[in-house]
């Protein structure tokens, strides 16, 4: 049985027509039934059942149970939650029980949502396929021999497998949009700073954002609206709009949409191109003004990202030293050895690779040539986005250059794997919002369409996405 729209579920729970306890049981049963897809690391069953019973009781007593009353959801396992370990799919955090919850999770719970499980990811969100998980690889719901995309692959697969009405992901270089594209769901990456990252395992702090994976744009907008806004626990958060992000004007008439030339070039697979072209034609027919837009520095974005991201990763992962929490190697004879043995055994290959690259580009003598240069090219890229948004309201392109690849296909070539993110990373570097929505299927595999908006224009972008969703 598939899930109703999130607003309808909450309304029916509030009206007493649906019971939160039944919704939680439905989610847990589906999770057990679909275990072979390896989307879930652990359930939070006990706590979820208890919360559901409390919500049903509140409804019976005539209390307001919230805008997400009784709605089950799944959190990527880099969100700190009660009720299960928080591992970031890494050996070094195996067994870690969070002493507090992520602010985003707290806000969802305050409106009655119920976390039922923790989803698989590439360890520490480093990857594009979930193959870098220290535990297991999540299977694509459409073809078990293929990856679901990453790093929020468990979250995306959860939504498509209908384990819960929505899932939370994180997007540092495309980690929400890419798996949404590969599995055929909606993935929303908000403006940088719109959702608090307190209590989420940090990856690259200048680009990390939190967002929802859902079946529809309306569902994504509602979840965003509950999570958005300043948080004293995350000083990078920005002011939210007073107006609800879920109140969408789904009209494209007269809207100017720029098709990104650099994303429609030779690197784009024939499996993807026809669907993007068909979407463009439908948008035109619906009254949108379509133009061709060039951001000449886009081909440099991936190189910029693969300097900035590892640099920030190497700093953020320095906290895992085996002294205060998580894995600690028992064989060390002094403190220095305790650090280096703990990290050697606790980190997987990709985390080590990024720590090493990051350490290199930040090291004395190389900082200016790599990190400073990358941050300056980043400025150039931001200027090009600003110039593009002088001409158009939204930018459009594919989310990924291809459909989902085979498990193992890119696993032994880190650089090839990095290229999967080529159409998503620039958005993170510029801090602008973007969404991936399903745009068709080739040989049984979904294709994602990416729409990009101006910084802080999240509601306008979601409105355009809702209108586009109706056309496709």
């Amino acid at each position, binding site marked *: 049985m598939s899930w109703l729209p999130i607003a309808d579920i909450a309304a029916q729970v509030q009206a007493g027509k649906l019971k939160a306890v039944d919704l939680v049981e439905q989610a847990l049963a589906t999770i057990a039934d679909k275990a072979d897809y390896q989307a879930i690391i652990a359930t939070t069953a006990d706590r979820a059942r208890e919360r559901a019973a409390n919500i049903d009781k509140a409804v019976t007593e005539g209390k307001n149970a919230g805008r997400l009353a009784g709605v089950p959801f799944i959190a990527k396992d880099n969100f700190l939650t009660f009720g299960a370990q928080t591992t970031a799919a890494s050996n070094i955090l195996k067994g870690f029980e969070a002493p507090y919850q992520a602010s985003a999770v707290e806000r969802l719970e305050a409106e009655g949502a119920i976390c039922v499980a923790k989803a698989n990811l590439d360890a520490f969100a480093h990857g594009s396929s979930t193959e870098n998980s220290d535990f297991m690889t999540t299977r694509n719901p459409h073809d078990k021999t293929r990856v679901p995309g990453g790093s929020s692959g468990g979250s995306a697969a959860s939504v498509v497998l209908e384990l819960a009405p929505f899932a939370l992901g994180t997007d540092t270089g495309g980690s929400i949009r890419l798996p949404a594209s590969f599995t055929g769901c909606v993935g929303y990456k908000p403006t940088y700073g719109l959702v608090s990252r307190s209590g989420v395992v940090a990856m690259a702090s200048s680009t990390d954002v939190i967002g929802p994976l859902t079946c529809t744009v309306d569902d994504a907008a509602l979840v965003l609206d509950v999570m958005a806004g300043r948080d004293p626990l995350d000083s990078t958060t920005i002011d939210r709009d007073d107006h609800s992000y879920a109140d969408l004007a789904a009209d494209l008439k007269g809207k100017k949409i720029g098709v990104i030339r650099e994303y429609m070039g030779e690197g784009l697979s024939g499996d993807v191109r026809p669907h993007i072209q068909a979407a463009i034609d439908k948008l035109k027919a619906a009254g949108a003004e379509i133009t061709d837009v060039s951001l000449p520095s886009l081909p440099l974005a991936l190189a*910029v990202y693969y300097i900035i991201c590892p640099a920030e990763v190497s700093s953020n992962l320095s906290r895992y030293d085996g*002294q205060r929490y998580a894995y600690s190697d028992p064989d060390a004879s002094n*403190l220095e050895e305790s*650090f*280096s043995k703990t990290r050697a055994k606790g980190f997987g290959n990709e985390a080590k690779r990024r720590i090493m690259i990051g350490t290199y580009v930040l090291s004395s003598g190389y900082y200016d040539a790599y990190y400073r240069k990358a941050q*300056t090219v980043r400025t150039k890229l931001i200027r090009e986005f600003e110039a593009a948004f002088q001409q158009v309201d939204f930018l459009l392109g594919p989310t990924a250059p291809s459909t989902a690849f085979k498990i193992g296909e890119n696993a032994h070539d880190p650089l090839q794997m990095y290229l999967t993110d080529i159409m998503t990373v620039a958005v993170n570097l510029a801090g602008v919002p973007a969404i991936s929505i399903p745009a068709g299927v080739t040989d049984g595999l979904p294709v994602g369409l990416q729409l990009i908006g101006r910084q802080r224009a999240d509601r306008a972008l979601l409105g355009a996405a809702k209108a586009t969703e109706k056309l496709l």
Partner: protein
Amino acid sequence: MTELTREDVLKLARLARLELTDEEAESFRAELSEVLQYVAQLDDADVSGLAPTSQVTGLTNVMREDEVVDYGISPAALLRLAPKTQDGHIKVKRMIG
């Protein structure tokens, strides 16, 4: 072109507090060299007149009152997470000598 040596890799590993096996040292040497070659395409980018960006929404110096806020997390709950404790402190291995 940047080709790292084995010594470069071992130095980085020491800076990053990572013990590497011989096999890891060699595979990272090759892989890191490849990534550094890829990012070298930035060398030719013209960035004259541009400053680096590290914060994209324009926030600067976000201030707050310097006061204790009770978030309901006890020191004992945090200490329970540590591998070794003694008398309310985290205990670590010998640092000097």
